[in-house]
């Protein structure tokens, strides 16, 4: 009902007070009213008694007068002798002397002297006078009640009666009223048949007449209350009538309102005092409840502000329950804030290193994005530890984590103002303070030596090798998540290209959103012939002849143009479409080899078989069947790691291939965890040394030693050795010296289309250095460069 405590309290208190006051007022009123009524009753009874006395006195006076006259000898003589004029004059004389309204005589014979007999009911009067000696009472003359007094005239026998009459009209009654202490209204009622009629002039008061009739009938002699109109207290006193058949009554009336009149100022005072009191109570309750509810209201407001996350506290002004509540509230609010801060800190920080986490990074990026000007960039760098699992295995989890933390600190020291967060276990991400990718690239380059300085953890210096991927975005281009994703991709790209750092290469990455549809397009491309094979020649270092080629799948997309093989091959592997791709490559390689044969060139054609297919019997059977049917000479190149995944199945498949006479080559040897054990188990015909070793051959040192050993190892296991990534004349020479069987690389020839290969093979000649003379392969380099200019 009431939304506010204050209103509630005020209404309650004021209402209670008003109720109590009303009870008091009602009680006072009732007491006063009953008291007043009692007083009026008493006064009325007293007035009634006074009236009786006055009535009696007056009657006595009249009686005396009447009797005096009735005994007067002369008067009697006049009456007895029917001396009318004398009688009339005598009666008139006495009437005047006594101040009577009427005076007359009635003879025994019914003769009336002194009054017109037509004014009254003579027969009734005569009967009444005759019935009783000295009859008296109310009798109607001219229809008005008169008090009649009679006395017999004896001369000496009864000759008639002398009758005196006094009006009972208003003036008479006013005189009576004046005798009363209170303002009584007196009037005489007389009975006319069933009706009681007032002697007063004016309109008839019907309720009063009815009341009088009832009171007379019930012989009610005490004052009673007459309701209706203005309530009044009425006393009905019967008056004797001359003839006993009718009735008359003196009616004393006192309006109750008038009885209450003297108390009206008292009642008014009570009511006014009550109203003032109620107003005071209401005001006081209002003020009190205000004092009471003000702190509660403050708490209410503070609580809702706290709910909205605002920093609030309530002023503590009292020491009572509310004050303690406010104190508790403040304490609670402060604890909530602390917990919240801790939760935020935990939510935004990495528990191990104390560095901000990815969420914090995202927030920071979003914040930066909202503050930079148009044209400016937010630049971030994903900094990945190289070979972190190995490092962690070496120094332990705890120290590895410390290492990450210390690198973070170092970054902040080198470039104050940047935000360093831990993105993954081994990757930190830095939001640069600079707003230009180019500038950041420069800064990164400058900072590299400092960053890679060994870090001391656990009392030991640990080498730090890191790779960085950078990404940048302008406002509205990328959101934080996409930007971080790009930085991570850039890191991958950087690692893939063996660079220390690079910015995100959008061209290389392609449109990732289109990658999924790429696969269905690839299957379409297989059917439509958009795929084709490029072949990279392999040089036999002993004969100088091109004895083999490696078939490489290429895709010229109608709208997206040339799509990098590692992209669509990798995706084909991931999405389960590698079988379809490999089937195409097999078919195409067999076809291309047939065309080469037709052109007079018999070369071994190497085909890359994905590690995902090496344990697929169905594929193996299909491939063997295809190769056998075409009488093709194919070599399946697989990576060593592919075998490690599921060695039992893979090795049996490889055995199956070997039985079918299909040679197997171990690809990219040395890039993975080259296992001598597997090398022994795999029945391979060829070992291809990873280009990472070959490219740095000419620098001498360890790589050269490794290559030499690998060549020797392969030879001793009965395998030929192919060196990949031969890009220089010196490298080729070294490989030849080392006894490497075959070489492949840009120095010899880039991968090329079938038509060009036919031309290349037709034109191919090389003069290989003899075993005792230094390698002279400048020719080769020249020709190869010209031939591979595709």
């Amino acid at each position, binding site marked *: 009902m009431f939304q506010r405590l204050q209103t509630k309290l005020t209404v309650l208190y004021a209402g209670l007070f008003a109720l109590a006051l009303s009870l008091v007022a009602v009680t006072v009123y009732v007491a006063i009213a009953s008291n007043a009524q009692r007083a009026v009753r008493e006064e009325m009874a007293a007035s009634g008694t006074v009236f009786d006395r006055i009535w009696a006195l007056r009657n006595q006076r009249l009686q005396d007068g009447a009797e005096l006259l*009735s*005994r007067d*000898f002369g008067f*009697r*003589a006049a009456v*007895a*002798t029917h001396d009318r004029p004398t009688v009339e004059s005598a009666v008139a004389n006495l009437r005047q002397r006594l101040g009577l309204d009427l005076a007359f005589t009635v003879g025994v014979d019914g003769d009336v002297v002194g009054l017109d007999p037509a004014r009254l009911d003579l027969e009734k009067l005569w009967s009444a006078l005759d019935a009783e*000696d000295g009859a008296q009472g109310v009798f109607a003359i001219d229809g008005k009640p008169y008090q009649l007094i009679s006395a*017999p005239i*004896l*001369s*000496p*026998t*009864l*000759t008639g009666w002398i009758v005196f009459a006094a009006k009972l009209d208003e003036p008479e009654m006013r005189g009576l009223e004046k005798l009363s202490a209170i303002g009584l209204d007196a009037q005489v009622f007389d009975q006319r048949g069933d009706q009681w009629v007032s002697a007063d002039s004016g309109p008839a008061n019907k309720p009063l007449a009815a009341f009088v009739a009832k009171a007379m009938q019930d012989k009610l002699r005490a004052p009673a209350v007459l309701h209706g109109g203005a309530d009044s207290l009425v006393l009905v006193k019967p008056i004797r009538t001359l003839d006993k058949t009718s009735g008359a009554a003196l009616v004393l009336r006192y309006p109750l309102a008038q009885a209450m009149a003297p108390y009206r100022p008292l009642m008014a005072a009570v009511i006014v005092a009550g109203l003032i009191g109620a107003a005071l109570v209401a005001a006081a309750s209002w003020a009190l409840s205000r004092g009471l509810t003000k702190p509660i209201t403050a708490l209410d407001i503070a609580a809702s502000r706290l709910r909205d996350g605002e920093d609030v506290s309530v002023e503590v002004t009292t020491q009572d329950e509310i004050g303690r509540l406010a104190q508790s509230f403040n304490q609670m609010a402060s604890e909530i804030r602390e917990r919240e801060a801790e939760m935020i800190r935990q939510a935004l920080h990495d528990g191990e290193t104390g560095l901000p986490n990815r969420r914090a990074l995202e927030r920071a990026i979003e914040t930066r994005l909202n503050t930079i000007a148009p044209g400016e960039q937010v630049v971030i760098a994903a900094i990945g530890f190289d070979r972190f699992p190995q490092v962690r295995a070496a120094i332990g989890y705890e120290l590895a984590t410390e290492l990450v933390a210390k690198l973070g600190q170092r970054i902040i020291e080198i470039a104050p103002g940047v935000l360093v967060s831990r993105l993954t276990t081994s990757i930190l991400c830095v939001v640069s303070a600079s707003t230009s990718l180019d500038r950041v690239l420069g800064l990164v380059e400058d900072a590299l030596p400092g960053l890679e300085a060994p870090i001391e953890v656990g009392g030991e210096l640990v080498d730090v090798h890191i790779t960085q991927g950078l990404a940048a975005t302008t406002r509205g281009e990328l959101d934080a998540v996409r930007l971080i994703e790009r930085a991570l991709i850039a890191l991958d790209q950087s690692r893939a290209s063996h660079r220390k750092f690079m910015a995100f290469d959008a061209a290389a990455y392609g449109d990732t959103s289109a990658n999924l549809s790429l696969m269905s397009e690839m299957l379409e491309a297989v059917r439509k012939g958009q795929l084709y094979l490029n072949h990279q020649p392999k040089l036999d270092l002993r004969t100088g002849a091109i004895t083999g080629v490696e078939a490489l799948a290429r895709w010229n997309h109608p709208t997206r143009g040339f799509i990098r093989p590692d992209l669509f091959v990798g995706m084909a592997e991931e999405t389960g479409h590698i079988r379809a791709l490999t089937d195409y490559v097999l078919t195409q390689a067999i076809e291309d080899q047939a065309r080469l044969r037709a052109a007079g060139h018999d070369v071994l054609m190497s085909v890359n078989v994905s590690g995902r297919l090496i344990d697929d019997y169905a594929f193996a059977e299909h491939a063997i069947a295809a190769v056998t049917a075409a009488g093709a000479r194919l070599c399946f190149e697989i990576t060593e790691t592919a075998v490690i995944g599921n060695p039992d199945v893979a090795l049996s498949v490889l055995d199956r291939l070997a039985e079918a006479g299909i040679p197997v080559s171990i690809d990219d040897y040395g890039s993975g965890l080259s296992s001598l054990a597997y090398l022994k188990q795999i029945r391979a015909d060829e070992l291809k040394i990873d280009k990472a070793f070959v490219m740095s051959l000419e620098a001498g040192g360890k790589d050269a030693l490794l290559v030499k050993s690998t060549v020797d190892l392969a030879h001793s296991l009965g395998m030929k050795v192919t060196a990949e990534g031969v890009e220089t004349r010196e490298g080729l020479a070294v490989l030849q010296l080392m006894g490497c069987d075959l070489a492949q690389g840009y120095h010899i020839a880039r991968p090329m289309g079938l038509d060009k290969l036919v031309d290349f093979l037709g034109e191919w000649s090389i003069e290989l250095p003899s075993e005792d003379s230094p390698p002279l392969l400048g020719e080769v380099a020249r020709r190869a460069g010209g031939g591979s200019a595709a």
Partner: protein
Amino acid sequence: MAGDFTVTVRSADGKPVPDAVVMVYPNGQPTKGPIKFPWPYRVAQQNIQFTPFMLVVPVGADVAFPNLDKVRHHVYSFSAGNKFEIKLYGHEENRTAKMNTAGVAAIGCNIHDQMVGFIRVVDTQYAGKTDANGVVTIQDVPTGAIKASVWHPYMRAMKNEKTLSTTSVGAGAAREQVAVELRAPAGR
């Protein structure tokens, strides 16, 4: 030929009514010639009372009003035809008043209201008043038809008089008993 006519007058409750006057008119005619009653025509005032209370006299009789009291009296009658007044007089015996008309003379004393007396003035020889037993005998009433009535000043009847039912008197005694209703004397 004549006979006695005895009338007994009683009130409604059977009590004897004294001082009732019975008047008999043979053949309905008043008596011609002088009338003489055997009782004195005298109303004395004794002990502030009229004595007798009732007196029957013939028309024209002089009634004496001797004052036997020591106080003075003022005897009067306002009765029509027999109006007289004997103003204040003391102890003496020679005051008289003449009754001129047949009828009633109600006598009173102006000084003493309680004093009331009646004189019945008759025009027949055959009249009398009842004794204490309410009995009166009219003697020597001529036989034949009569007209008789009884009168009393307080009788509740027209002219305080009632006609008797006896209409004739034979030889021997005639009797009649009559009941009358009396009212209380006014003003007493």
